[in-house]
Structure formats: structure tokens, C-alpha cells
């Protein structure tokens, strides 16, 4: 019994430490969008990349970035980098992140991009996402996607206009001109993802 517990502990610690790093290939995922249809990463075979953003309805930091997420999609969908927003929170722990609440929010704020629910949290786990919002900029290489940037949208959560570094925009511009992004990972304050209680 004790051994099992110890192993469980390590299994958990290991799972937390896992996740994609810059340069890693991303496995395909298929999740339900707020319009009821399924969305897969493999649907984006003609785009240059995808801006995957783990976000949610309820976190004040996610809300602070909501308009910037909408703007990113407006600006970069047409140039080949659409946004896919993924809500990884367990609605049992955070009722405001239920699928119905997601549908409502996407409608209210006129999301022009998929807002999908990671119900099993397997996608957030595979990516190694830890907080909302948490961005993974993916670059398509043939029929696989590789992680080009992980982190924050910019360096000022409170005031978009005062941001000095717009990390995601700069990374996309670098990729578009055939270069590697200058900054490939950043840290940010955010709300911890509400993981399902395992017990």
C-alpha cells in the first residue's frame, strides 16, 4: 500500500513536470466547440500555424486578456495564424466554466475563433499548461505542428496599451520572416488550472 502511494506520488509529480517544450511536435487533439461541432488541430492543414490559448470564463487574468485574444484572431487569422481557445477548467470546481457558460460567453463577446472544452483535461496535460491564460504558438511543418513559443501574450496584463513586449505578435512576425522568435518562452501570473480532484 505504502509503495503504491509513493509510486502514485511520483506519477503525479511526473505528470506535472511533463508537457511540450519549444520545438516539440504536438499530438493531434479533437475537442467540442461552443457551436457543438468538433474541432481538431488537424483541421488546420492549410494554415501556417495555430495560436493555442488555454483560457477560461472565470479567471480575472483571462478576462483581462479576452479582448487581446479576440484581436489576435482578427489580426492573424487572415495571415495564417488563427486562434484556438481551449477551456481546461473542471466545471465541477468552477461552475462558471461549464460548457453552457462557455457558449454564452463566446456569443456575448463575439468570439471569431473556436472556444473548445477540454473536458477530460487530457489536452492541457499533454501541453503542460499550468494557468489561464497560457499561450502555445504552433508552427505547421508539413502535416505536423511544432511548438514555437510558450507563455504570455504580452508583458502587461493590466494595461494592453502599456505593454512593451507583445510576445505572441513578435513570435508570429519572426516565423513569418523565416526566423526563430527572439523570445521563445515567458512567464506570467495567471489562475492555476482547476484540475479535477482525483480522490
Amino acid at each position, binding site marked *: 500500500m505504502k509503495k503504491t502511494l509513493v509510486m502514485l506520488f511520483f506519477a503525479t509529480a511526473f505528470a506535472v513536470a511533463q508537457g511540450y517544450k519549444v520545438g516539440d511536435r504536438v499530438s493531434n487533439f479533437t475537442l467540442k466547440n461552443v457551436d457543438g461541432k468538433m474541432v481538431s488541430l488537424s483541421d488546420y492543414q492549410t494554415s501556417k500555424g495555430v495560436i493555442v490559448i488555454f483560457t477560461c470564463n472565470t479567471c480575472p487574468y483571462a478576462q483581462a486578456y479576452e479582448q487581446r485574444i479576440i484581436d489576435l484572431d482578427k489580426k492573424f487569422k487572415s495571415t495564417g495564424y488563427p486562434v484556438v481557445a481551449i477551456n481546461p477548467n473542471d466545471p465541477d470546481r468552477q461552475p462558471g466554466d461549464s460548457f453552457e457558460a462557455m457558449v454564452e460567453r463566446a456569443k456575448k463577446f463575439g468570439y471569431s475563433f473556436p472556444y473548445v472544452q477540454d473536458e477530460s483535461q487530457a489536452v492541457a496535460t499533454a501541453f503542460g499548461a499550468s*494557468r489561464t491564460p497560457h499561450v502555445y504558438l504552433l508552427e505547421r511543418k508539413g502535416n505536423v505542428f511544432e511548438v514555437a513559443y510558450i507563455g504570455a501574450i504580452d508583458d502587461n*496584463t*493590466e494595461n494592453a496599451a502599456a505593454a512593451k513586449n507583445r510576445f505572441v505578435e513578435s513570435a508570429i512576425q519572426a516565423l513569418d520572416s523565416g526566423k526563430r522568435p527572439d523570445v521563445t518562452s515567458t512567464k506570467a501570473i495567471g489562475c492555476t488550472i482547476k484540475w479535477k480532484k482525483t480522490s
Partner: protein
Amino acid sequence: MRWIPILLVGSSLFAQTISIAKLPDVKRIYERANDTTYVINFWATWCSPCIEELPYFEEANQFFSTEKVRIVLVSVDFRSQFESKVKPFVIKRKMKTDVVLLDEADANNYIDAIDPSWSGAIPATLVVNNYRDLRIFKGEAFTKEELFRLIRSTIN
């Protein structure tokens, strides 16, 4: 009877401070070369797991008040919400531990400056005793027992 309110104000100021500080000033709190254990907890009024563990820090602040222990609760709330959210929160909960709002916008910069192993998720707590060359960072919530055990281990 007119002197009573004045006395009350005086004692509450003595017991606790709520202030705003830049990163270097926050670091100066715990970078002193003495045998005090500094417990720096990073939290925000919007963070529910942080709010759950705040009472443990309050209790520890009381419990270790005669020891060389200094607990500071560093809020990462927005600067613009200091008056509207942070102060009312602290007053409503009658918090006795010192609260400092970290007035820095660039989290990517200050997170690593506080601890390179910090992902940016809160709650997070830094425990420092410079005299004993001790530095422990925990990027998740404490139970009350864990917190008390950790503080005790740094002062014995």
C-alpha cells in the same frame, strides 16, 4: 471618551500595514543579513486557493509573533485595484499580517527575479533566512501543518 478612537487607530497601525511597493523594495524586505525567517506569500484577492490558505499565514503570524519570524503577504493584484479591492478585502477580513501590493506590470521579469523555479501560478511562497543560508520556494498552497512545520524548522 473622545480619546478611544484615536487609540484604536494607533494600535491598528502598529499591528498591520498595507502598502504598495516596487520589486526592489519587496526584495529588500527579505534580503536582510540577519537571523530572521522571512515568509513571503504571493497571493491575490481573485485567487481562491490563495484565499483558502491566507488564514494559515494569519495564524502563523500570531503563533510565531515572539520568534524571529516575519510574514509578509505580497498581493499581485492590479495596482488600479489597490483601493477598490485589496484594501477592502484586508479590512473586511480583519487581517493582521502585513500586506504589500507588488506594483510591477512585467511579470515575466519579476517572476524569475523572485525565484527562477516559479511558473507564475499563485499561491506561491518564498521562505528565506539569510543568516542560515536558507531559501525555500513552494509554488503551491500549504496546509496549515506544512506551513507551521516549515517555519518551525527554520528557527530551531
